């Protein structure tokens, strides 16, 4: 039994059915398939939502091990575990006992913990960029010089101190944005569309298995 369930064909089959169900009604006008597709789409959202505990559980698995083994820095893992559990429980949607997104602990941790932490975490890159710009942004050859000149032009384009001094900075930056940047990104957009279509074809042919790898084998 378990050998049959284990077969990779099952998830591949599920993927193909799920894909076709969404695509076909967009081009072929059969109301019943369209309604089914819409309902299944809503149903899938439930399956997505129920997966929500995977994050906390894997985190607890990884950090639980660290605590158990008393590995280096295990007390930081305790911190991780405590905040994961508190945040997960405080936000459970049981308004009857005062939990949920309006819960005081939940909103407090979000406003005064999550907000400053994540804003700062990503903001810290400003420093690394500055030091990298100083160290690595060199006009070594023609290509590097183009990146350098275009990059500096854009930096000036975004800073009012430059554009107020000489509006030309704005014009130059605008040109880089509208012409070479547009051309690059249009090609990238077209390429991404082609990539998505090719991925879909490989999936429908049952040969794209990247997302099914992983786990323990």
């Amino acid at each position: 039994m378990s050998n049959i369930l284990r077969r990779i064909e099952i998830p591949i089959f599920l993927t193909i059915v799920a894909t076709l169900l969404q695509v076909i009604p967009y081009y072929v006008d059969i109301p019943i398939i369209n309604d089914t597709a819409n309902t299944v789409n809503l149903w899938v959202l439930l399956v997505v939502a129920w997966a929500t505990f995977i994050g906390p559980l894997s985190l607890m698995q990884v950090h639980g091990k660290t605590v158990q083994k008393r590995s280096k820095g295990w007390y930081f893992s305790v911190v991780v575990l405590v905040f994961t559990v508190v945040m997960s429980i405080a936000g459970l949607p049981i308004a009857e006992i005062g939990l949920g997104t309006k819960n005081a602990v939940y909103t407090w941790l979000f406003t005064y913990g999550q907000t400053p932490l994540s804003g700062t975490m990503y903001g810290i890159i400003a420093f690394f960029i500055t030091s990298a710009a100083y160290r690595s942004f060199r006009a070594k050859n023609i290509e590097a010089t183009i990146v350098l000149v275009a990059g500096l032009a854009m930096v000036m384009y975004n800073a009012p101190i430059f554009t107020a001094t000489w509006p030309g900075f704005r014009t130059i930056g605008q040109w880089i944005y509208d012409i070479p940047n547009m051309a690059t990104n249009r090609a990238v957009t077209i390429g991404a569309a082609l990539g998505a279509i090719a991925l879909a074809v490989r999936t429908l042919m049952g040969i794209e298995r990247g997302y099914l790898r992983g786990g323990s084998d």
Partner: protein
Amino acid sequence: MAILIANRIFGLVCLLAIMIAVAYFIRRAQGGKVPKVRRIPGIDAIDEAIGRAVEMGRPVIASHGIANLRDSTTGPQTIAGLSVLSYVAKKCAEVSTRLIVPVRQPEVWPIAADVVETAYKMAGKGEEFQQSDIVFLSTEQFGFSSNYIGLLMREKPGANIMIGAYWAESMQLAETGNRVGAMQISGTAQTSQIPFFLISTDYCLIGEEIYAAGAYLTNEAPLIASLAGQDFGRILAIILGILGSLLTTALTVAGNPLLTVMSW
């Protein structure tokens, strides 16, 4: 004029044409007729970097990005990164150089380990494979990057190869690699990160080049064939665009009243 007016049929025809082209090339490849792929210059750079690490007696670090395998745009990048990893592992096994692989996603770890171990076994050096050199660092983005930075500083690799999906950490890693004197090959399809790889690594694979590199190195027929199908789409896009633009210009010069329909 039909080309210039957007409607569903035009899209459907394009979609079907591209899908059929991809499917056709894949079928043909399965029958043994695999299209030729251009050798990406970055691949020579990988050989050079490994050679340099050997000369210096330093290890090689190779990473496949920080994305998982599931996401539709970043998953394929991880797969491309793993394909390059298998090539790097093969080269390292041949010259008996230590290879370290930092991993962020728990689900990718077993695959990375498997890829490297297989490459070592294929080179007849299965006993040299060290599982502890496939290091799981942290699931947290910056936890991963700070550990990776630590790894670079301690091991001082001769080569640092980063191919896959990267986000904000791209520059931290590339900058540190630069500082410890590693020859660096990078590549990502995350457009916003390409500039940082471009300026701070020795060779950067741009965007879709990483897929071509992956397909080229693993020689997996369906992947190469699917590239050929995409190339068909590219040519289609270019021809339509050029013809359309010439037509627009001709009509304008002729003062054709139809143009009001498609005015800016």
